[in-house]
């Protein structure tokens, strides 16, 4: 195919600014999806995406426009899925940067725009939702000019809802975004930018051919993995898969190579043809590192093998989470899992529960600490219960973030207060425009993981937005708080917190548990301790009576059934330090929201 007739673009934006809706209009306008087959958020194909109304995975489609072929990638806007955006950009020469004309520039508008600039991509800026009464396109255009340096008059105006301006946008894509370059005669080099597992077809990879031609039936070498696979099928999505004989330089499509394990066709892999192999692989990507960790345990201990199988299967479609088995005195056998962020954690958990019919308990999210021991060793721990005894700890480093908060100026004060409460250090405060401020702070990741986002939203009526990136490790005055039940530590409730917040955490946990733990035959002390020092304490008083009601003839069957149920319930309880704790108590105590 003639390179000049190709365009490869991604749509990037802050969450909810309308990327997927714009893709809908493009599918319609280009005629590849008929009005009859059209449905809103067409490319959000996962149930969870549709229910939550957000995009989680990138989607690539090929559309015809004005004698040209545009390959368009719809990307997610949520910060947890930034890895999807960076992978998409590596397959493109340009982006459509979408800005909600009623919201203006938000945190991921900026972050994704910078990402496009770093990749030397041509940016077509475009305001969306101009149909909204609250839209203020002129002011929004000024803001784009002021903040991103894109001249206001170049900013397009569309409504992805009504379709207004979408044709012009596609024209602009063809006119302004450069066609790919690539040498048709050079050895094949194609970049895998996404892979997923299909029950029937095995691994299906999204590929962008950089040089040379990929042919169906060819023997392909996966350069990083060092393996060879036959190209069983190559094709393009439009949006349904259509097999083709060959993908030339600059083209984007899919590859099925009889691979059963996504690990063998990782994103960032370079594929070449064994007949005339390339010497050097493409740049590839760095694997994203999990940022937050939690333990996932089946509520019913018998489901442990099912959970393992579910994790294995789910990882075929989402290689960005990690898991390894662990066990807990309180929760039994489970897995310690690592995620890209809190939303990612929530989604993985929900998918495990729904797609594999499991009921799970998740422990409180943790981050990865580096513990320097008095013996001079360094231990990395992502589970508080792995912490060496405090007496052997010399210092603890925790991961930090640089967060960037974009907010209307009115909320500057309350957000500074929030950041300070969270041990934040201000890096800068910059007026992006008279109405909009960017606050930059360094904040420990652990502080962001505990409801920072919700706090930020509630303090600003939802107007502030947040972006962050990892910013190294730093020593902090951290301690491990243990929670003891009848003098026995309950590993699931241990937490690493800043020294100044230890007492507060300990007190809250003791109070919560006092409400949740049923009275036993003896007094049960609940204590929070740092090292050997008790910092909070509650007592569940011994139970003094159970039923003292009448037992007449009509009650006998009912009483027996009640006893049977209580017996069953007892069997399901976990015994910790002789205290019988119902599973629900753990579930409620570990609930994040209170």
């Amino acid at each position, binding site marked *: 195919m003639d390179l000049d007739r190709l365009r490869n673009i991604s749509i990037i934006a802050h969450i909810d600014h309308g990327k997927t809706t714009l893709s809908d209009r493009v599918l319609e306008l280009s005629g590849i999806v008929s009005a009859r087959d059209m449905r809103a958020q067409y490319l959000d194909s996962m149930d969870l995406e549709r229910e939550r109304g957000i995009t989680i995975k990138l989607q690539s489609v090929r559309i015809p426009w004005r004698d040209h072929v545009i390959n368009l990638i719809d990307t997610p806007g949520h910060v947890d899925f930034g890895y999807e955006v960076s992978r998409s950009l590596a397959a493109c020469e340009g982006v459509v940067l979408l800005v909600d004309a009623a919201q203006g520039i938000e945190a991921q508008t900026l972050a994704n725009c910078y990402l496009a600039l770093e990749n030397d991509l041509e940016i077509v800026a475009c305001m969306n939702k101009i149909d909204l009464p609250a839209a203020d396109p002129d002011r929004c255009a000024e803001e784009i000019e002021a903040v991103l340096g894109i001249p206001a008059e170049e900013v397009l105006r569309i409504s992805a809802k009504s379709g207004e301006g979408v044709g012009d946008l596609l024209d602009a894509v063809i006119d302004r975004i450069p066609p790919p370059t690539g040498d048709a005669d050079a050895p094949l080099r194609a970049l895998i930018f996404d892979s997923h597992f299909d029950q029937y077809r095995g691994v299906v990879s999204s590929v962008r051919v950089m040089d040379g031609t990929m042919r169906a039936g060819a023997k392909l070498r996966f350069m990083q993995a060092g393996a060879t696979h036959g190209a069983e099928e190559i094709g393009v999505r439009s949006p349904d898969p259509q097999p083709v004989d060959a993908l030339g330089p600059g083209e984007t499509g899919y590859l099925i190579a009889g691979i059963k394990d996504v690990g063998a066709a990782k994103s960032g892999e370079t594929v070449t043809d064994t007949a005339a192999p390339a010497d050097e692989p493409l740049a590839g990507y760095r694997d994203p590192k999990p940022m937050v960790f939690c333990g996932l345990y089946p509520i019913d201990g018998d489901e442990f093998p099912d959970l393992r199988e579910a994790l294995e299967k789910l990882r075929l479609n989402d290689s960005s989470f990690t898991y390894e088995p662990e066990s807990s005195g309180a929760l039994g056998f489970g897995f310690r899992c690592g995620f890209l962020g809190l939303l990612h954690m929530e989604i993985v958990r929900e998918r495990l529960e729904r797609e594999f019919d499991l009921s799970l308990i998740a422990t409180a999210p943790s981050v990865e600490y580096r513990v320097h021991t008095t013996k001079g060793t360094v231990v990395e721990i992502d589970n508080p219960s792995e912490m060496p005894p405090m007496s052997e700890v010399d210092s603890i480093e925790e991961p930090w973030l640089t967060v960037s908060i974009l907010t209307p100026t009115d909320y500057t004060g309350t957000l500074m207060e929030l950041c300070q409460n969270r041990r934040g250090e201000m890096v800068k405060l910059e007026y992006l425009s008279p109405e909009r401020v960017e606050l930059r702070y360094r904040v420990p990741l652990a502080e962001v993981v505990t409801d920072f986002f919700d706090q930020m939203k509630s303090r600003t009526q939802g107007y502030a937005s947040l972006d962050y990136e990892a910013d190294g490790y730093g020593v902090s005055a951290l301690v491990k708080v243990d929670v003891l039940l009848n003098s026995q530590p309950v590993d699931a409730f241990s937490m690493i917190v800043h020294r100044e917040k230890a007492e507060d955490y300990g007190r809250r946990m003791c109070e919560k548990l006092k409400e949740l733990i049923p*009275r036993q*035959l003896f007094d049960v002390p609940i204590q929070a301790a740092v090292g050997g020092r008790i910092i909070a304490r509650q007592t569940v*008083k011994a*139970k*003094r*009576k*159970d*039923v*003292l*009601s*009448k*037992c*007449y*003839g*009509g009650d*006998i*069957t009912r*009483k*027996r059934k009640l*006893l049977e149920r*209580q*017996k069953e319930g*007892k069997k399901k309880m976990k015994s910790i330090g002789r205290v019988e704790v119902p599973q629900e108590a753990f579930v409620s105590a570990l609930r994040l929201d209170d």
Partner: protein
Amino acid sequence: MPFCRHRCDYCAFATWTDRDHVAARYLEACRVHAARLAPGLAPVTSVFVGGGTPSRVDPTPLLAVLAELPVAEGAEVTVECNPEDLDAGRAAAFAAGGVTRVSIGVQSFVAHVLDALGRRHPVEAVGPAVAAARGAGLDVNLDLIYGGTGESRADWATTLDGALALEPDHVSAYGLTVEPGTPLADDPSRHPDDDDQADKYLDASDRLEAAGYGWYEISNWARPGHRCRHNLLYWSMGDYVALGCAAHGHRDGVRYWHVRTPERYADEVEAGREPVAGSERLEPGARRLEAVQLSLRTEAGVPVAALPPADRAALVGLVEVRGDRLVLTRGGRLLANEVATRLVDPGEAA
């Protein structure tokens, strides 16, 4: 007799306040049913006419039901009464009709506690009611409830003293229990406090036992020779026949229960059908387990083999060995469920 003047706050019994017009038809159905069952019955050793409020209905048709039954010589025949209903005339009629015992729903001798329980009789009605029963030569049980809203320890002492002053033969003292679906259940602010009820249970045990009432089941005390035989029958897996709506029976290892409403009961009986709504037969092992669970509640206790040694260790202070039996201690009576959930089938021998 499933008819009450007014529904008490805590009551989950099958009883109605708006169906008095059904009473006559219902009593006749009971009589017909009794007559139908009688030929298949061995002489009955006890009869219990329970509530609702049997003392509200005309005694004549009520006693006519009794007359159909093959009541054994010296049998115990109890009628539940509300204090305000029991006058000399009714008591005499009962006695003449074969009744030997009344169980009076006193609940409390403190006006504000009665009020809080949603009971409408005046405290002053109890004395005359007991006198009327005595006058007719009837045995007397007083039913008491502790743990109503606003009841202090002193109030409960007043109630215990009030009951003892009337010298009943038998006292039942129940902890107020929150049954689902009652007005009480809907108002957590009025739910009884466990510790308070535990204290009051021990108060009852202290006072009643000191006054010569022997403990024989968790919530029951009696003067020597006056234990309720009907209750003992329930707790010793004896056989009993159900009569009336929502009544339960137990015969030949089968537990069964009747349809719930008086109208349906009458419909069934009039149509010549047995008014049974459901039944269950337990496996021998399950039956033995049920037997020990019931027996545990009583002074007879359970065979030692019914409680595994490990559990006995966990329950130190709650059960004590008496010969080859394990019996609840005073503390154990308060936590009988804890003990009961650990009981096992003691095997064929027991």
